[in-house]
């Protein structure tokens, strides 16, 4: 005879497994297994003709990875992705932080209204906004160049000029994504105790110094979180070039994800897997580095 406590515990155990089983099955089959198989495939010469027999393929070691590093188009795609992230993430965060500070301290009325407007692009499909922006960025009759024309500036042929295509994509990404960061910054700013600011004011600190020495240090965890999530998203950018430029002009906007997708389309599954794992590794490293960097300064 087992004790009532033991019976209870066994009941809990059984119930817990009943509750987690559907998740474990679905997650195992559709996420965990593909993650492992992707790694396996990246060391093989799997092509689309091997679709029905994914294990009857030749093991090629690091060949796909070596090939990727030597592939000029992959290098271009990697450089473009770095450009997109290194310019896009700071730009997005600066816009978001500016908007959050203004909404938090600068105004008293219509705060919810502005917050809603700035957040709206985030919920929309990137494909749909990319279609719209393709027209906004048109050389001759596009809205953006028309507005620039009012100010006497002759706008560039955004999507047709290799020097301007990536800035155009970054501009659109910042426009679409800064709302998320802004909302999270707002929550972070509201957690800064007003008494700290009051004490600093009494000591004669102006708004800029108070922002630099009080707000910014207290905002560090928020800054960390937002920069990591934004960078992870930007490292995978795909829809923007797919819809707006098809990677052009002159491959100036082809991204690592897009090139991976293209190789998949050509049927080079092993090669595509290797490139997707490279993206994965970069994402993991960036996450780790940003954690170290922002934590150490604190």
């Amino acid at each position, binding site marked *: 005879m087992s004790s009532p406590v033991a019976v209870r515990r066994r009941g809990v155990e059984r119930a817990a497994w009943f509750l987690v089983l559907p998740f474990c099955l679905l997650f195992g089959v559709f996420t965990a297994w593909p993650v492992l198989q992707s790694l396996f495939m990246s060391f093989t010469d799997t092509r689309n003709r091997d679709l029905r027999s994914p294990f009857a393929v030749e093991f090629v070691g690091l060949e796909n990875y070596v090939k990727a590093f030597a592939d000029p188009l992959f290098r271009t795609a990697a450089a473009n992705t770095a450009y997109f992230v290194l310019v896009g993430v700071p730009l997005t965060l600066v816009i978001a932080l500016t908007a959050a500070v203004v909404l938090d301290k600068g105004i008293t009325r219509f705060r919810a209204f502005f917050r809603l407007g700035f957040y709206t692009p985030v*919920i929309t499909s990137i494909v749909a906004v990319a279609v719209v922006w393709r027209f906004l960025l048109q050389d001759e009759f596009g809205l953006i160049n028309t507005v620039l024309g009012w100010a006497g500036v002759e706008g560039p042929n955004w999507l047709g000029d290799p020097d301007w295509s990536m800035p155009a994509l970054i501009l659109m990404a910042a426009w679409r994504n800064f709302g998320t960061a802004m909302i999270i910054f707002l929550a972070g700013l509201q957690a800064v105790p007003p008494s700290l600011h009051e004490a600093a004011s009494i000591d004669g600190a102006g708004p800029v110094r108070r922002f630099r020495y009080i707000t910014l240090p207290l905002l560090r965890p928020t800054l960390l979180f937002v920069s990591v999530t934004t960078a992870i998203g930007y490292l995978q950018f795909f829809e923007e070039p797919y819809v707006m430029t098809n990677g052009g002009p002159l491959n100036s906007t082809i991204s690592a994800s897009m090139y991976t997708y293209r190789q998949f389309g050509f049927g080079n599954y092993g090669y595509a897997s290797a490139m997707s794992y490279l993206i994965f590794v970069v994402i993991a490293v960036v996450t780790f580095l940003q954690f170290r960097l922002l934590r150490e300064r604190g």
Partner: protein
Amino acid sequence: MTASRTKNRWWIYVPLTVAFVAVVSPFAWMVLGSFKGEGEIRANPPTWLPEAASLDNYTQLFARLQFGTYFLNSAIVAVLVTAGNLIFCSMVGYALAMLEFRGKRALFVVVMATLMIPGVVTFVPLYVLVVNAGLANSLPALILPFLVSPFGVFLMRQYIVGLPKELLDAGRVDGAGEVRIFAGIILPLCGPALATLGILTFLGSWNNFLWPLVVAQQESEYTLPVALALYSTGQNSIQYGLLLAGATIVVVPVLLVFLVFQRRFIEGIATTGIK
């Protein structure tokens, strides 16, 4: 002091309003443009209000290009994916937050470690899997891989951990089993977390692109973003009115839902600190 400070700052509404217009105007231009004819969309200088508003673009999308089917596909996929996440993720969240069982630590570590697995890492083997399972070009292929998410588990677990443990004891005294405690006591208290997860999942599914693009290779299985992307890069790529109407169909339904739930949604994002 506060009064004088705000009085001096009225000018800040000027750049703020300019920024607001800049952020929102692409949507206004999209919706207005969707009622314009081809000639007017290309007019230089551009017009705002359509001179001869018509529903031609929409009629074409639904009559000639099957946008009704794509819309229905997107809706079915998003609803089922959302339902799956709400049910399965809250079940796991409850188990991780309140129950003791073997493998609990390992499960939690796996969930945390896979929070950020990008879709680009899994799509190739997932495609092989789906083809071999005979699911290629079917709605289940669009739904099954997204029915659960580590992120959803994390969100629900964090919320349920904050609920008082005494709820369990109350239920146990009444003789309820763990599953009944979950369904009858815990779940009804999870409203805010379920709302956040539900809206995020629905939006994520509705806007999802890479996987549907990979796996939906027949028109009958296209979702809206796939159809729009393929039309915008294919032979219809210069029919601007048509494409703007297509973009409007993708954006406006979620925009309306968002406007209704925006307060709860924005607060949910702020408190959970996630995208």
